[in-house]
């Protein structure tokens, strides 16, 4: 069993509205799994089903090979997008309460909380009320509460919203470290640069259906267009440019560089290898820049959603 969480053709309707239609995903152990999709696609419904907040109409969810049961609550840590805490409750009491709801003993929760509060340097907030904290500060508490009981599966819904860049980085590093320690992470966000940065796997849900799924690199390979970005220098640049245009499909390119005369995106066909292109170029000019253009997660997202 290499998958920590498997959703097997899960469907859910609210009245006449089908929120999820036969969605299957498999989240490998130790991965960071990006759950993507436009607003209202059904991501939150799926996350709520995994958290046993709502029940699926059809299909089943397996956690570590077992059908999802109420006992699994303690194996999952969930940071919802709509977050909040009891405003008039003290930070420490509240964290203890939430930890106990996740099945931790009071003493254990206290020790773990102390560890986390020291780590994030928020120890002196223990007796403050949530309403005295700023939004970002409350988010930190919320993060601690989510990971406190060392769940196998962590679900973060837009974890960085509301954080300044420094704290966002801090939380990002914590997430990566939790993964190192063996946790599996499901990560739902609209910020594609953090998908690019963190996720190994992604699944894209659109209009209640899963439309894309797999390793991020595999998907990128699928979506690649065999285009290379090149920067060349030559004394006879116009002549070289003319020659290239005759042999390949060429698009203008913009990238920052010191002194490249020719900047191009060159698309090659299946029969041509990158080496062929490179030798073609080296024969005619000095190659300063040669990079395969890979589609960004952002490009893939937009292309998939608009094509469906």
């Amino acid at each position: 069993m290499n998958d920590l969480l498997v959703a097997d053709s899960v469907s859910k309707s609210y009245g006449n509205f089908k929120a999820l239609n036969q969605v299957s995903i498999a989240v490998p152990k130790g991965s960071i799994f990006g759950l993507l999709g436009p607003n209202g696609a059904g991501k939150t419904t799926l996350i709520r089903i995994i958290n046993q907040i709502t029940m699926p109409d059809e299909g089943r969810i397996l956690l570590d090979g077992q059908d999802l049961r109420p006992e699994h609550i303690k194996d999952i840590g969930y940071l919802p997008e709509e977050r909040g805490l009891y405003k008039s409750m003290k930070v420490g009491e509240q964290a203890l309460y939430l930890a106990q709801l996740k099945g931790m003993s009071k003493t254990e929760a206290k020790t773990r909380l102390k560890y986390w509060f020291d780590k994030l340097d928020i120890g002196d907030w223990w007796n403050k009320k949530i309403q005295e904290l700023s939004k970002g500060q409350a988010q930190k508490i919320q993060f601690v509460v989510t990971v406190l009981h060392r769940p196998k599966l962590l679900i973060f819904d837009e974890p960085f919203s509301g954080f300044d860049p420094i704290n966002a980085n801090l939380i990002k590093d914590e997430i990566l470290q939790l993964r190192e320690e063996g946790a599996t992470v499901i990560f739902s966000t609209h910020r594609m640069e953090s998908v690019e940065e963190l996720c190994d796997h992604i699944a894209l849900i659109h209009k209640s259906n899963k439309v894309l799924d797999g390793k991020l690199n595999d998907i990128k390979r699928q979506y690649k267009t065999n285009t290379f970005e090149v920067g060349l220098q030559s004394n006879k640049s116009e002549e070289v440019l003319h020659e290239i245009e005759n042999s390949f499909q060429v698009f203008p390119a913009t990238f920052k560089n010191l002194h490249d005369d020719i900047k191009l995106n060159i698309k090659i066909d299946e029969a041509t290898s990158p080496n062929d292109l490179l030798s073609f170029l080296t024969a005619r000019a000095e190659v300063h820049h040669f990079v395969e253009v890979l589609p960004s997660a952002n490009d893939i997202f937009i292309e998939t959603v608009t094509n469906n």
Partner: protein
Amino acid sequence: MNHLPLIIKREYLTKVKNRSFIVMTFLSPLIMIGLIAVVAYLSQLNKDKERSISVLDESGYLSDAFQNSENTTYSYLEGLDLNTAKKLVKEKEDYGLLYIGKSISLDDISNHIKFYSEDSPSITIISNLERKIEKRLREIKLQQDGVSMQQIEASKIQINISQESFEGETSSKMDNIVKLAFGGIAGYLLFMFIIIYGNMIMRSVIEEKTSRIIEIIISSVKPVQLMMGKIIGTSLAGVTQFVIWVLLGGVLLVVVTAIFGIDMAQMKTPQQDMVDQVMQNQGAQAVAESLIIAIGNLPLLNLIIAFMFFFIGGYLLYSSLYAAIGAAVDNETDTQQFMFPIIMPLVLAVYVGFFTVIEDPHGAVSTIFSFIPFTSPVVMLMRIPFGVPLWQQGLSLLILIGTFMFAVWLGAKIYRVGILMYGKKPTYKELFKWIKY
């Protein structure tokens, strides 16, 4: 995992530690007692006010009809005409002038009686005067017909029917008064409790929604558990507050009475008139004795047990509905449309209790309403002091518990869907849809 005790503990502690809760707990009895003291003081003030009324009697029939009383002195004006009398009374700053004009016969006299005063006189004073005049004239008329004063006195008879059931249990009017008091207090207590603490439950559900913590909580516990925890925790806080109120109120009442020497017993409410009637007929000693006997006559054990069951059952039934409402809406202003159907049966129950049960505790209306689960807790509690067969109590309780379970199921359904719904003001149609999800 059973988190119910944990949730109850949190709900209880947050409620009890809440600043406004603490303030209300200790301030309310003070305000109540203060209010009672002020009312008592004012009514005493009113009573102590002395009035003098002048009487100008030209008919000659009512020359000794008006005896000075504690607060009212009557002075007869002789040999003045009406205008001079009016002027004189105005100068004397008397309360008013009662004028009885000349008339041909006793029957005609009522057309010639007038009361002149600066401000419009109070109803009690006027009816008091009327009563005195009527009494006097009746006596005169009887005397004209040849009945002597002694005969009139001797004709007055006091009746105090003693009651006995076919089984041989004796009871008195005092019994009924005590029964009414017990039933009334129990029913009213439940009514107040539901309104105050039902609202508190509703607010605490709404608070969880608006602070958006709800999704985190219900990823750890089942909505039904959360709902029950809230209901029980809030109720315990309510009981705590109630007990403090009763204790503090009692102590304060004693203190205030002692300090200000205000005799609370002097305050009259319409209900007390009945008590007074009984008291008039018996000495104070006898009243105290019959009171003790009357309390002893109550089915006390039955009363206490029934009180506990119906109180808890009724309270839980209503509070699960309150919790469901809290879950269905986003903020307190949206609750109005759903509050009405909840308050209605409650108010109805209290009305039925206070009007029908008092009139006829075992009549059709009282009996039916003591079986309908939304009114039964209040109505049955008011009926039980009058003796209700155990099978009726049991059946009513069963219906109540059944309805309660149904309400919890229904409430939990609405709760489960509602707590995650934001931004929509739900309609009844939508609520119905939620139940089916």
